[in-house]
Protein backbone atom coordinates (compact mmCIF):
# COMPACT_ATOMS: atom_id res chain seq x y z
CA UNK A 1 0.00 0.00 0.00
CA UNK A 2 2.76 2.37 0.99
CA UNK A 3 4.61 1.44 -2.17
CA UNK A 4 1.53 2.07 -4.27
CA UNK A 5 1.19 5.51 -2.78
CA UNK A 6 4.93 6.15 -3.00
CA UNK A 7 7.17 6.32 0.09
CA UNK A 8 7.88 9.67 1.58
CA UNK A 9 9.67 11.12 4.59
CA UNK A 10 7.54 13.00 7.12
CA UNK A 11 8.47 16.28 5.51
CA UNK A 12 7.24 14.94 2.20
CA UNK A 13 10.53 14.20 0.36
CA UNK A 14 10.13 11.11 -1.83
CA UNK A 15 12.10 8.04 -0.71
CA UNK A 16 13.38 5.22 -2.92
CA UNK A 17 13.11 1.53 -2.02
CA UNK A 18 16.46 1.43 -0.24
CA UNK A 19 15.13 4.00 2.15
CA UNK A 20 17.37 6.89 1.09
CA UNK A 21 15.81 10.16 0.23
CA UNK A 22 16.07 10.82 -3.44
CA UNK A 23 16.75 14.44 -2.90
CA UNK A 24 19.21 14.38 0.02
CA UNK A 25 22.72 12.91 0.34
CA UNK A 26 21.38 9.47 1.44
CA UNK A 27 20.71 9.70 5.16
CA UNK A 28 19.87 5.97 5.42
CA UNK A 29 19.15 6.27 9.08
CA UNK A 30 17.48 2.85 9.11
CA UNK A 31 20.55 1.19 7.58
CA UNK A 32 22.76 2.85 10.14
CA UNK A 33 20.56 1.63 12.97
CA UNK A 34 20.44 -1.89 11.52
CA UNK A 35 24.19 -2.13 11.10
CA UNK A 36 24.91 -0.61 14.49
CA UNK A 37 22.44 -2.92 16.22
CA UNK A 38 23.68 -6.08 14.52
CA UNK A 39 27.31 -5.10 15.06
CA UNK A 40 26.75 -4.40 18.75
CA UNK A 41 24.85 -7.65 19.20
CA UNK A 42 27.48 -9.57 17.24
CA UNK A 43 30.43 -8.16 19.15
CA UNK A 44 28.56 -8.64 22.41
CA UNK A 45 27.63 -12.18 21.49
CA UNK A 46 31.18 -13.07 20.52
CA UNK A 47 32.52 -11.46 23.69
CA UNK A 48 30.10 -13.57 25.72
CA UNK A 49 31.58 -16.70 24.17
CA UNK A 50 34.99 -15.95 25.69
CA UNK A 51 34.04 -16.70 29.31
CA UNK A 52 31.68 -19.49 28.22
CA UNK A 53 34.47 -21.28 26.38
CA UNK A 54 37.40 -20.54 28.64
CA UNK A 55 35.56 -21.65 31.80
CA UNK A 56 36.11 -25.18 30.54
CA UNK A 57 39.91 -24.83 30.43
CA UNK A 58 41.95 -26.06 33.44
CA UNK A 59 41.12 -23.93 36.48
CA UNK A 60 43.63 -22.11 38.71
CA UNK A 61 43.78 -24.85 41.33
CA UNK A 62 44.43 -27.48 38.67
CA UNK A 63 47.19 -25.34 37.18
CA UNK A 64 48.65 -24.64 40.64
CA UNK A 65 49.34 -28.35 41.06
CA UNK A 66 51.16 -28.52 37.76
CA UNK A 67 54.68 -28.98 39.19
CA UNK A 68 55.99 -31.67 41.53
CA UNK A 69 59.25 -32.34 43.39
CA UNK A 70 60.38 -35.94 43.76
CA UNK A 71 63.17 -37.40 45.93
CA UNK A 72 64.98 -40.00 43.84
CA UNK A 73 67.73 -40.96 46.31
CA UNK A 74 66.21 -44.37 47.10
CA UNK A 75 65.96 -45.60 43.50
CA UNK A 76 68.70 -48.17 42.86
CA UNK A 77 69.97 -48.93 39.34
CA UNK A 78 67.46 -51.16 37.59
CA UNK A 79 64.61 -49.82 39.73
CA UNK A 80 61.86 -47.42 38.84
CA UNK A 81 59.11 -45.57 40.66
CA UNK A 82 55.73 -44.22 39.63
CA UNK A 83 55.17 -40.69 40.84
CA UNK A 84 52.11 -38.52 40.29
CA UNK A 85 52.47 -35.49 38.07
CA UNK A 86 49.45 -33.48 36.93
CA UNK A 87 47.20 -36.32 38.13
CA UNK A 88 49.00 -38.65 35.77
CA UNK A 89 51.62 -41.28 36.39
CA UNK A 90 55.27 -40.33 35.93
CA UNK A 91 57.98 -42.96 35.54
CA UNK A 92 61.37 -42.23 37.10
CA UNK A 93 63.80 -44.96 36.22
CA UNK A 94 67.41 -45.49 37.17
CA UNK A 95 68.79 -47.35 34.16
CA UNK A 96 71.51 -49.96 34.58
CA UNK A 97 74.66 -49.59 32.53
CA UNK A 98 73.48 -52.45 30.34
CA UNK A 99 70.16 -50.71 29.67
CA UNK A 100 71.94 -47.47 28.76
CA UNK A 101 74.18 -49.42 26.41
CA UNK A 102 71.21 -51.23 24.86
CA UNK A 103 69.51 -47.89 24.16
CA UNK A 104 72.70 -46.55 22.58
CA UNK A 105 73.07 -49.48 20.21
CA UNK A 106 69.82 -48.84 18.36
CA UNK A 107 70.05 -47.28 14.90
CA UNK A 108 68.16 -44.03 15.52
CA UNK A 109 67.10 -43.61 11.90
CA UNK A 110 65.19 -46.90 12.12
CA UNK A 111 62.91 -45.54 14.87
CA UNK A 112 59.35 -44.34 14.46
CA UNK A 113 60.09 -41.27 16.59
CA UNK A 114 63.87 -40.86 16.17
CA UNK A 115 65.59 -39.70 19.36
CA UNK A 116 68.72 -40.79 21.22
CA UNK A 117 68.79 -41.57 24.93
CA UNK A 118 71.00 -38.47 25.39
CA UNK A 119 68.30 -36.27 23.85
CA UNK A 120 65.79 -37.76 26.27
CA UNK A 121 67.85 -37.34 29.46
CA UNK A 122 69.90 -34.58 31.12
CA UNK A 123 73.61 -34.22 30.45
CA UNK A 124 75.67 -36.44 32.71
CA UNK A 125 72.52 -38.10 34.01
CA UNK A 126 71.84 -40.50 31.15
CA UNK A 127 70.85 -43.18 33.66
CA UNK A 128 67.87 -41.12 34.90
CA UNK A 129 65.05 -41.78 32.47
CA UNK A 130 62.13 -39.58 33.45
CA UNK A 131 59.02 -39.91 31.32
CA UNK A 132 55.28 -39.70 31.58
CA UNK A 133 53.67 -43.05 32.37
CA UNK A 134 51.07 -42.37 29.72
CA UNK A 135 51.05 -44.40 26.54
CA UNK A 136 51.08 -42.08 23.54
CA UNK A 137 48.47 -44.23 21.84
CA UNK A 138 45.37 -43.70 23.96
CA UNK A 139 46.69 -42.80 27.39
CA UNK A 140 46.89 -46.08 29.31
CA UNK A 141 49.59 -46.63 31.94
CA UNK A 142 52.27 -48.91 30.48
CA UNK A 143 53.69 -51.72 32.59
CA UNK A 144 57.37 -51.99 33.45
CA UNK A 145 57.96 -49.40 36.19
CA UNK A 146 56.56 -51.49 39.03
CA UNK A 147 58.34 -54.40 40.68
CA UNK A 148 57.79 -57.59 38.69
CA UNK A 149 55.82 -55.97 35.86
CA UNK A 150 56.26 -57.07 32.27
CA UNK A 151 58.81 -54.83 30.53
CA UNK A 152 58.09 -56.01 27.00
CA UNK A 153 60.46 -57.43 24.43
CA UNK A 154 62.67 -54.30 24.33
CA UNK A 155 63.17 -54.21 28.08
CA UNK A 156 61.47 -50.85 28.63
CA UNK A 157 57.72 -50.59 28.98
CA UNK A 158 54.76 -52.51 27.63
CA UNK A 159 51.27 -51.09 27.31
CA UNK A 160 48.68 -53.78 28.00
CA UNK A 161 45.80 -51.89 26.37
CA UNK A 162 46.75 -52.06 22.74
CA UNK A 163 50.15 -53.70 22.83
CA UNK A 164 52.62 -50.83 22.36
CA UNK A 165 56.21 -51.77 23.28
CA UNK A 166 58.82 -49.20 24.42
CA UNK A 167 62.57 -49.73 24.77
CA UNK A 168 64.97 -48.78 27.59
CA UNK A 169 64.92 -45.15 26.45
CA UNK A 170 61.08 -45.34 26.50
CA UNK A 171 61.04 -45.00 22.71
CA UNK A 172 58.20 -46.59 20.79
CA UNK A 173 59.39 -49.72 19.03
CA UNK A 174 56.29 -51.73 18.22
CA UNK A 175 52.50 -51.40 18.37
CA UNK A 176 50.08 -48.59 17.60
CA UNK A 177 51.55 -45.71 19.67
CA UNK A 178 52.88 -42.96 17.38
CA UNK A 179 55.42 -41.30 19.72
CA UNK A 180 57.98 -42.06 22.38
CA UNK A 181 56.80 -41.72 25.98
CA UNK A 182 56.74 -37.99 26.64
CA UNK A 183 59.65 -36.48 28.55
CA UNK A 184 58.22 -33.68 30.71
CA UNK A 185 60.13 -30.52 31.54
CA UNK A 186 62.23 -31.11 34.63
CA UNK A 187 65.37 -29.92 36.40
CA UNK A 188 67.65 -31.57 38.93
CA UNK A 189 67.39 -29.31 41.99
CA UNK A 190 70.15 -31.43 43.51
CA UNK A 191 71.55 -34.89 42.91
CA UNK A 192 68.62 -36.41 44.78
CA UNK A 193 65.67 -34.10 44.04
CA UNK A 194 64.07 -33.48 40.65
CA UNK A 195 61.47 -30.82 40.04
CA UNK A 196 59.04 -31.76 37.31
CA UNK A 197 57.05 -29.11 35.51
Amino acid at each position, binding site marked *: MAQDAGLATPDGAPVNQAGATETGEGVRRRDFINIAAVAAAGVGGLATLVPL*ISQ*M*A*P*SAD*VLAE*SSTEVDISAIKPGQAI*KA*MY*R*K*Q*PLFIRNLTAAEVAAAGKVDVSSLRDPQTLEQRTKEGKANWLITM*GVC*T*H*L*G*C*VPLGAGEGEVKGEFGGYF*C*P*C*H*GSVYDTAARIRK*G*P*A*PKNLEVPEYVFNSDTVVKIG
Partner: protein
Amino acid sequence: MSFPWANEYKPSHPFMQWMDSRLPLPRFVYNAVGAGYPVPRNINYWWNFGFLALICLGLQIVTGIVLAMHYAANAGIAFDSVEHIMRDVNWGWLMRYAHGNGASAFFVVIYIHIFRGFYFGSYKPPREMVWLLGVAIFLLMMATAFMGYVLPWGQMSFWGAKVITGLFGAIPLVGEPIQQWLLGGFAPDNAALNRFFSLHYLLPFVIVAVVVLHIWALHIPGSTNPTGVEVKTESDTLPFFPYFIAKDGWAALAFLMIYCAVVFFAPNMLGHPDNYIPANSMSTPALIVPEWYFWPFYAILRSFTFDFFFIPAKLMGVLAMFGSILVWFFLPWLDKSPVRSGNYRPLFRKFFWFGLIPSVLLLGYCGGSHAAEPYLMLSQIGSFYYFAHFLIILPIISSIERPDPLPFSITESVLGHDGNAALGAAA
Protein backbone atom coordinates in the same frame (compact mmCIF):
# COMPACT_ATOMS: atom_id res chain seq x y z
CA MET B 1 0.94 -33.75 6.24
CA SER B 2 -1.60 -36.07 5.63
CA PHE B 3 -3.32 -38.21 3.12
CA PRO B 4 -6.63 -36.76 1.98
CA TRP B 5 -8.52 -39.57 3.68
CA ALA B 6 -6.95 -39.03 7.11
CA ASN B 7 -9.53 -38.72 9.86
CA GLU B 8 -10.15 -35.15 10.86
CA TYR B 9 -10.07 -34.04 14.47
CA LYS B 10 -13.62 -33.07 15.44
CA PRO B 11 -13.89 -32.37 19.16
CA SER B 12 -17.44 -32.97 20.43
CA HIS B 13 -17.07 -31.73 23.98
CA PRO B 14 -17.55 -27.95 24.28
CA PHE B 15 -14.39 -27.62 26.36
CA MET B 16 -12.31 -29.40 23.72
CA GLN B 17 -13.84 -27.15 21.04
CA TRP B 18 -12.96 -24.12 23.16
CA MET B 19 -9.45 -25.48 23.59
CA ASP B 20 -9.05 -26.35 19.90
CA SER B 21 -9.63 -22.76 18.84
CA ARG B 22 -7.11 -21.44 21.39
CA LEU B 23 -4.33 -24.02 21.74
CA PRO B 24 -4.85 -26.91 19.29
CA LEU B 25 -2.56 -29.27 21.17
CA PRO B 26 -5.10 -32.14 21.20
CA ARG B 27 -5.45 -31.73 17.42
CA PHE B 28 -1.68 -31.90 17.07
CA VAL B 29 -1.50 -35.12 19.10
CA TYR B 30 -4.47 -36.59 17.21
CA ASN B 31 -2.78 -35.93 13.87
CA ALA B 32 0.65 -37.10 15.03
CA VAL B 33 -0.02 -40.26 17.00
CA GLY B 34 -3.78 -40.60 16.96
CA ALA B 35 -6.50 -41.64 14.57
CA GLY B 36 -5.50 -38.78 12.28
CA TYR B 37 -2.27 -40.46 11.14
CA PRO B 38 -2.78 -43.12 8.44
CA VAL B 39 -0.13 -45.86 8.50
CA PRO B 40 0.57 -48.47 5.81
CA ARG B 41 -1.48 -51.50 6.83
CA ASN B 42 1.28 -54.00 6.03
CA ILE B 43 4.06 -52.86 8.38
CA ASN B 44 5.62 -55.78 10.22
CA TYR B 45 7.16 -56.19 13.67
CA TRP B 46 10.40 -54.49 12.61
CA TRP B 47 8.35 -51.28 12.54
CA ASN B 48 7.68 -51.50 16.29
CA PHE B 49 11.19 -50.49 17.23
CA GLY B 50 10.71 -46.75 16.79
CA PHE B 51 8.02 -46.84 19.44
CA LEU B 52 10.18 -49.07 21.64
CA ALA B 53 13.03 -46.56 21.32
CA LEU B 54 10.67 -43.88 22.59
CA ILE B 55 9.80 -46.08 25.57
CA CYS B 56 13.51 -46.55 26.30
CA LEU B 57 14.12 -42.82 26.13
CA GLY B 58 11.29 -42.21 28.60
CA LEU B 59 12.56 -44.96 30.87
CA GLN B 60 16.08 -43.52 30.87
CA ILE B 61 14.87 -39.99 31.59
CA VAL B 62 12.66 -41.09 34.50
CA THR B 63 15.22 -43.38 36.14
CA GLY B 64 17.97 -40.86 35.41
CA ILE B 65 16.17 -38.00 37.13
CA VAL B 66 15.69 -40.24 40.16
CA LEU B 67 19.35 -41.25 40.23
CA ALA B 68 20.45 -37.61 39.94
CA MET B 69 18.61 -36.95 43.21
CA HIS B 70 21.05 -39.25 45.03
CA TYR B 71 24.23 -39.10 42.98
CA ALA B 72 27.12 -36.75 43.79
CA ALA B 73 29.23 -35.61 40.82
CA ASN B 74 32.47 -35.18 42.74
CA ALA B 75 35.52 -37.30 42.05
CA GLY B 76 36.05 -37.82 45.78
CA ILE B 77 32.62 -39.26 46.52
CA ALA B 78 31.03 -40.21 43.20
CA PHE B 79 31.90 -43.90 43.54
CA ASP B 80 30.63 -44.00 47.13
CA SER B 81 27.45 -42.18 46.21
CA VAL B 82 26.69 -44.87 43.65
CA GLU B 83 27.24 -47.53 46.31
CA HIS B 84 25.00 -45.45 48.57
CA ILE B 85 22.32 -45.62 45.89
CA MET B 86 22.81 -49.39 45.64
CA ARG B 87 22.75 -50.11 49.38
CA ASP B 88 20.97 -47.33 51.26
CA VAL B 89 18.55 -45.47 49.01
CA ASN B 90 15.10 -47.04 48.99
CA TRP B 91 14.77 -48.93 45.71
CA GLY B 92 18.02 -47.32 44.62
CA TRP B 93 19.38 -50.65 43.37
CA LEU B 94 16.36 -50.99 41.11
CA MET B 95 16.71 -47.50 39.72
CA ARG B 96 20.41 -47.96 38.97
CA TYR B 97 20.02 -51.40 37.43
CA ALA B 98 17.04 -50.17 35.41
CA HIS B 99 19.09 -47.21 34.16
CA GLY B 100 22.26 -49.15 33.34
CA ASN B 101 20.43 -51.96 31.60
CA GLY B 102 18.06 -49.41 30.13
CA ALA B 103 21.01 -48.00 28.20
CA SER B 104 21.78 -51.46 26.84
CA ALA B 105 18.13 -52.03 25.97
CA PHE B 106 18.00 -48.66 24.25
CA PHE B 107 20.95 -49.61 22.05
CA VAL B 108 19.53 -53.06 21.23
CA VAL B 109 16.32 -51.37 20.13
CA ILE B 110 18.05 -48.58 18.22
CA TYR B 111 20.38 -50.96 16.37
CA ILE B 112 17.39 -53.01 15.22
CA HIS B 113 15.65 -49.76 14.25
CA ILE B 114 18.70 -48.63 12.24
CA PHE B 115 19.22 -51.97 10.52
CA ARG B 116 15.50 -52.07 9.70
CA GLY B 117 16.20 -48.80 7.90
CA PHE B 118 19.20 -50.31 6.10
CA TYR B 119 17.27 -53.34 4.89
CA PHE B 120 14.03 -51.67 3.88
CA GLY B 121 15.67 -48.58 2.37
CA SER B 122 14.00 -46.19 4.81
CA TYR B 123 16.67 -43.59 4.04
CA LYS B 124 15.64 -43.17 0.41
CA PRO B 125 13.77 -40.21 -1.03
CA PRO B 126 11.59 -38.61 0.18
CA ARG B 127 12.71 -39.63 3.69
CA GLU B 128 16.35 -38.44 3.69
CA MET B 129 15.71 -35.91 6.46
CA VAL B 130 14.15 -38.60 8.64
CA TRP B 131 17.30 -40.64 8.19
CA LEU B 132 19.73 -37.75 8.77
CA LEU B 133 17.94 -36.72 11.95
CA GLY B 134 18.00 -40.35 13.07
CA VAL B 135 21.78 -40.53 12.62
CA ALA B 136 22.06 -37.30 14.61
CA ILE B 137 20.00 -38.90 17.40
CA PHE B 138 22.29 -41.91 17.37
CA LEU B 139 25.39 -39.69 17.73
CA LEU B 140 23.74 -37.86 20.63
CA MET B 141 22.89 -41.22 22.21
CA MET B 142 26.49 -42.34 21.94
CA ALA B 143 27.75 -39.15 23.61
CA THR B 144 25.13 -39.44 26.35
CA ALA B 145 25.85 -43.10 27.01
CA PHE B 146 29.60 -42.54 27.10
CA MET B 147 29.34 -39.70 29.61
CA GLY B 148 26.84 -41.65 31.70
CA TYR B 149 29.23 -44.57 31.94
CA VAL B 150 31.92 -42.24 33.34
CA LEU B 151 29.74 -41.06 36.23
CA PRO B 152 30.15 -44.05 38.63
CA TRP B 153 33.88 -43.21 38.58
CA GLY B 154 35.02 -46.81 38.61
CA GLN B 155 38.10 -48.09 36.81
CA MET B 156 36.31 -48.60 33.48
CA SER B 157 34.65 -45.20 33.83
CA PHE B 158 37.96 -43.48 34.36
CA TRP B 159 39.95 -45.33 31.74
CA GLY B 160 37.14 -45.18 29.23
CA ALA B 161 37.08 -41.41 29.70
CA LYS B 162 40.83 -41.26 29.33
CA VAL B 163 40.91 -43.31 26.13
CA ILE B 164 37.98 -41.53 24.50
CA THR B 165 39.14 -38.00 25.36
CA GLY B 166 42.59 -39.18 24.22
CA LEU B 167 41.07 -39.57 20.76
CA PHE B 168 40.97 -35.80 20.48
CA GLY B 169 44.70 -35.73 21.23
CA ALA B 170 45.21 -37.42 17.87
CA ILE B 171 44.14 -34.27 16.03
CA PRO B 172 47.28 -32.61 14.62
CA LEU B 173 48.54 -29.42 16.33
CA VAL B 174 45.40 -28.47 18.25
CA GLY B 175 44.69 -31.95 19.66
CA GLU B 176 46.34 -31.59 23.04
CA PRO B 177 44.90 -28.15 23.88
CA ILE B 178 41.46 -29.40 22.83
CA GLN B 179 41.83 -32.45 25.03
CA GLN B 180 42.83 -30.33 28.03
CA TRP B 181 39.98 -27.96 27.34
CA LEU B 182 37.48 -30.83 27.17
CA LEU B 183 38.77 -32.33 30.41
CA GLY B 184 39.44 -29.08 32.27
CA GLY B 185 42.77 -30.58 33.32
CA PHE B 186 45.59 -32.80 32.22
CA ALA B 187 43.74 -36.04 32.94
CA PRO B 188 40.14 -36.93 33.80
CA ASP B 189 39.40 -35.54 37.24
CA ASN B 190 36.78 -33.61 39.13
CA ALA B 191 36.32 -30.95 36.44
CA ALA B 192 35.71 -33.60 33.78
CA LEU B 193 33.33 -35.59 35.98
CA ASN B 194 31.26 -32.51 36.76
CA ARG B 195 30.88 -31.40 33.17
CA PHE B 196 30.08 -34.94 32.04
CA PHE B 197 27.28 -35.04 34.59
CA SER B 198 25.96 -31.68 33.45
CA LEU B 199 25.95 -32.78 29.81
CA HIS B 200 24.64 -36.24 30.61
CA TYR B 201 21.61 -34.56 32.14
CA LEU B 202 21.23 -32.11 29.27
CA LEU B 203 21.65 -34.29 26.18
CA PRO B 204 18.59 -36.55 26.68
CA PHE B 205 16.40 -33.47 26.39
CA VAL B 206 18.24 -32.47 23.23
CA ILE B 207 17.48 -36.00 22.01
CA VAL B 208 13.80 -35.47 22.82
CA ALA B 209 13.85 -32.32 20.68
CA VAL B 210 15.52 -34.09 17.74
CA VAL B 211 13.09 -37.02 18.11
CA VAL B 212 10.25 -34.53 17.66
CA LEU B 213 11.90 -33.32 14.43
CA HIS B 214 12.51 -36.95 13.37
CA ILE B 215 8.82 -37.80 13.75
CA TRP B 216 7.75 -34.53 12.18
CA ALA B 217 9.91 -35.24 9.12
CA LEU B 218 8.60 -38.82 9.02
CA HIS B 219 4.97 -37.71 9.03
CA ILE B 220 5.39 -35.57 5.91
CA PRO B 221 5.63 -38.56 3.51
CA GLY B 222 4.34 -41.05 6.09
CA SER B 223 5.91 -44.31 7.22
CA THR B 224 7.54 -46.75 4.82
CA ASN B 225 6.44 -50.37 4.71
CA PRO B 226 7.96 -53.78 3.91
CA THR B 227 7.16 -53.55 0.19
CA GLY B 228 8.70 -50.09 -0.16
CA VAL B 229 5.75 -49.20 -2.43
CA GLU B 230 4.27 -45.82 -1.53
CA VAL B 231 0.73 -45.51 -0.20
CA LYS B 232 -1.73 -44.96 -3.09
CA THR B 233 -5.24 -45.25 -1.73
CA GLU B 234 -7.13 -45.36 1.51
CA SER B 235 -7.23 -49.16 1.44
CA ASP B 236 -3.43 -49.13 1.83
CA THR B 237 -3.58 -47.59 5.30
CA LEU B 238 -5.11 -47.92 8.72
CA PRO B 239 -5.25 -45.18 11.34
CA PHE B 240 -2.40 -45.16 13.89
CA PHE B 241 -4.98 -45.20 16.68
CA PRO B 242 -6.19 -47.76 17.60
CA TYR B 243 -4.52 -50.24 15.22
CA PHE B 244 -0.85 -49.47 15.57
CA ILE B 245 -1.01 -48.17 19.13
CA ALA B 246 -2.35 -51.62 20.01
CA LYS B 247 0.40 -53.38 18.09
CA ASP B 248 3.08 -51.11 19.58
CA GLY B 249 1.62 -51.75 23.01
CA TRP B 250 1.91 -55.49 22.48
CA ALA B 251 5.53 -55.08 21.40
CA ALA B 252 6.18 -52.85 24.39
CA LEU B 253 4.95 -55.53 26.79
CA ALA B 254 7.07 -58.20 25.11
CA PHE B 255 10.07 -55.88 25.27
CA LEU B 256 9.50 -54.98 28.90
CA MET B 257 9.30 -58.66 29.87
CA ILE B 258 12.76 -59.31 28.46
CA TYR B 259 14.10 -56.07 29.89
CA CYS B 260 12.73 -56.81 33.37
CA ALA B 261 14.13 -60.34 33.24
CA VAL B 262 17.60 -58.85 32.73
CA VAL B 263 17.14 -56.09 35.32
CA PHE B 264 15.95 -58.51 38.00
CA PHE B 265 17.85 -61.69 37.26
CA ALA B 266 21.04 -60.69 35.46
CA PRO B 267 21.60 -56.99 36.15
CA ASN B 268 25.38 -57.17 35.81
CA MET B 269 25.44 -59.49 32.81
CA LEU B 270 26.30 -56.66 30.39
CA GLY B 271 28.45 -54.65 32.79
CA HIS B 272 32.16 -54.98 33.45
CA PRO B 273 33.29 -56.09 36.94
CA ASP B 274 36.25 -53.67 36.86
CA ASN B 275 33.83 -50.80 37.19
CA TYR B 276 33.18 -51.88 40.78
CA ILE B 277 36.81 -50.89 41.53
CA PRO B 278 37.16 -47.17 42.33
CA ALA B 279 38.94 -45.09 39.68
CA ASN B 280 42.71 -45.16 40.00
CA SER B 281 44.72 -42.93 37.70
CA MET B 282 47.92 -44.86 38.48
CA SER B 283 46.78 -48.30 37.41
CA THR B 284 45.32 -49.35 34.08
CA PRO B 285 42.92 -52.30 33.98
CA ALA B 286 44.31 -55.27 32.07
CA LEU B 287 41.69 -54.83 29.37
CA ILE B 288 40.00 -51.52 28.69
CA VAL B 289 36.77 -52.12 26.86
CA PRO B 290 33.78 -49.89 26.40
CA GLU B 291 30.23 -51.10 26.92
CA TRP B 292 29.14 -53.75 24.42
CA TYR B 293 27.22 -51.30 22.26
CA PHE B 294 30.45 -49.51 21.31
CA TRP B 295 32.45 -52.63 20.52
CA PRO B 296 32.15 -52.51 16.70
CA PHE B 297 33.34 -48.89 16.65
CA TYR B 298 36.11 -49.63 19.14
CA ALA B 299 37.32 -52.46 16.90
CA ILE B 300 37.47 -50.07 13.93
CA LEU B 301 39.44 -47.60 16.08
CA ARG B 302 42.00 -50.26 16.98
CA SER B 303 42.22 -51.85 13.54
CA PHE B 304 44.58 -49.15 12.23
CA THR B 305 47.96 -50.36 13.42
CA PHE B 306 49.94 -48.93 10.51
CA ASP B 307 50.41 -45.45 9.10
CA PHE B 308 48.15 -44.72 6.17
CA PHE B 309 50.20 -42.75 3.65
CA PHE B 310 51.06 -39.61 5.61
CA ILE B 311 48.34 -40.03 8.26
CA PRO B 312 49.60 -41.59 11.50
CA ALA B 313 47.90 -44.81 12.61
CA LYS B 314 46.32 -43.25 15.69
CA LEU B 315 44.69 -40.40 13.79
CA MET B 316 43.59 -42.81 11.09
CA GLY B 317 41.88 -45.02 13.69
CA VAL B 318 40.04 -42.02 15.10
CA LEU B 319 38.99 -40.81 11.65
CA ALA B 320 37.82 -44.30 10.70
CA MET B 321 35.80 -44.69 13.88
CA PHE B 322 33.95 -41.42 13.36
CA GLY B 323 33.78 -42.09 9.64
CA SER B 324 32.05 -45.41 10.24
CA ILE B 325 28.99 -43.48 11.48
CA LEU B 326 29.39 -40.38 9.35
CA VAL B 327 29.15 -42.59 6.24
CA TRP B 328 25.51 -43.19 7.23
CA PHE B 329 24.83 -39.52 6.52
CA PHE B 330 25.70 -40.15 2.87
CA LEU B 331 23.74 -43.38 2.56
CA PRO B 332 20.73 -41.85 0.76
CA TRP B 333 23.09 -40.77 -2.02
CA LEU B 334 25.31 -43.85 -2.06
CA ASP B 335 22.49 -46.32 -2.60
CA LYS B 336 20.90 -45.10 -5.83
CA SER B 337 18.52 -48.00 -6.40
CA PRO B 338 14.98 -46.67 -6.77
CA VAL B 339 13.66 -49.86 -5.14
CA ARG B 340 13.50 -49.36 -1.39
CA SER B 341 12.81 -52.72 0.15
CA GLY B 342 15.48 -55.42 0.39
CA ASN B 343 12.67 -57.93 -0.14
CA TYR B 344 12.73 -57.04 -3.86
CA ARG B 345 16.49 -56.63 -4.22
CA PRO B 346 18.09 -60.09 -4.52
CA LEU B 347 21.69 -58.91 -4.79
CA PHE B 348 21.43 -56.25 -2.10
CA ARG B 349 19.80 -58.80 0.20
CA LYS B 350 22.75 -61.19 -0.12
CA PHE B 351 25.27 -58.49 0.74
CA PHE B 352 23.10 -57.33 3.64
CA TRP B 353 22.75 -60.75 5.29
CA PHE B 354 26.10 -62.27 4.32
CA GLY B 355 28.24 -59.12 4.26
CA LEU B 356 27.09 -56.22 6.41
CA ILE B 357 25.58 -58.18 9.30
CA PRO B 358 28.52 -60.62 9.71
CA SER B 359 31.08 -57.81 9.42
CA VAL B 360 29.38 -55.80 12.17
CA LEU B 361 29.07 -58.88 14.39
CA LEU B 362 32.72 -59.72 13.76
CA LEU B 363 33.75 -56.16 14.62
CA GLY B 364 31.66 -56.32 17.77
CA TYR B 365 33.31 -59.56 18.82
CA CYS B 366 36.80 -58.16 18.17
CA GLY B 367 36.04 -54.86 19.91
CA GLY B 368 35.31 -56.71 23.14
CA SER B 369 38.51 -58.74 22.94
CA HIS B 370 42.17 -58.02 23.61
CA ALA B 371 44.05 -55.91 21.09
CA ALA B 372 46.15 -58.81 19.87
CA GLU B 373 46.15 -61.28 17.01
CA PRO B 374 43.99 -62.76 15.64
CA TYR B 375 41.54 -60.03 16.69
CA LEU B 376 43.50 -57.21 15.03
CA MET B 377 43.54 -58.95 11.68
CA LEU B 378 39.86 -59.87 12.00
CA SER B 379 39.07 -56.23 12.87
CA GLN B 380 40.94 -55.11 9.78
CA ILE B 381 38.97 -57.51 7.61
CA GLY B 382 35.71 -56.42 9.26
CA SER B 383 36.54 -52.73 8.90
CA PHE B 384 37.50 -53.16 5.28
CA TYR B 385 34.25 -54.89 4.43
CA TYR B 386 32.20 -52.41 6.46
CA PHE B 387 33.51 -49.40 4.54
CA ALA B 388 33.52 -51.26 1.23
CA HIS B 389 29.86 -52.15 1.76
CA PHE B 390 28.78 -48.53 1.95
CA LEU B 391 31.29 -46.87 -0.34
CA ILE B 392 31.81 -49.47 -3.08
CA ILE B 393 29.29 -52.32 -2.95
CA LEU B 394 26.07 -50.32 -2.50
CA PRO B 395 26.76 -47.88 -5.35
CA ILE B 396 27.71 -50.77 -7.66
CA ILE B 397 24.83 -53.10 -6.90
CA SER B 398 22.34 -50.28 -7.13
CA SER B 399 23.39 -49.85 -10.77
CA ILE B 400 23.79 -53.49 -11.86
CA GLU B 401 21.05 -55.21 -9.89
CA ARG B 402 17.82 -56.37 -11.53
CA PRO B 403 15.14 -56.04 -8.84
CA ASP B 404 12.22 -58.44 -8.48
CA PRO B 405 8.82 -57.17 -9.69
CA LEU B 406 7.13 -54.94 -7.14
CA PRO B 407 3.48 -55.40 -6.17
CA PHE B 408 1.16 -52.84 -7.72
CA SER B 409 0.10 -51.56 -4.32
CA ILE B 410 0.23 -52.25 -0.60
CA THR B 411 -3.34 -53.54 -0.76
CA GLU B 412 -2.40 -55.96 -3.53
CA SER B 413 0.60 -57.19 -1.55
CA VAL B 414 -1.70 -57.94 1.39
CA LEU B 415 -4.78 -59.29 -0.40
CA GLY B 416 -3.35 -60.66 -3.64
CA HIS B 417 -4.08 -59.91 -7.30
CA ASP B 418 -7.78 -60.51 -7.05
CA GLY B 419 -9.37 -57.09 -7.31
CA ASN B 420 -12.57 -58.43 -5.82
CA ALA B 421 -10.73 -59.45 -2.68
CA ALA B 422 -9.70 -55.85 -2.17
CA LEU B 423 -13.21 -54.66 -2.82
CA GLY B 424 -14.57 -57.29 -0.52
CA ALA B 425 -12.31 -56.14 2.27
CA ALA B 426 -13.28 -52.56 1.71
CA ALA B 427 -16.99 -53.37 1.78
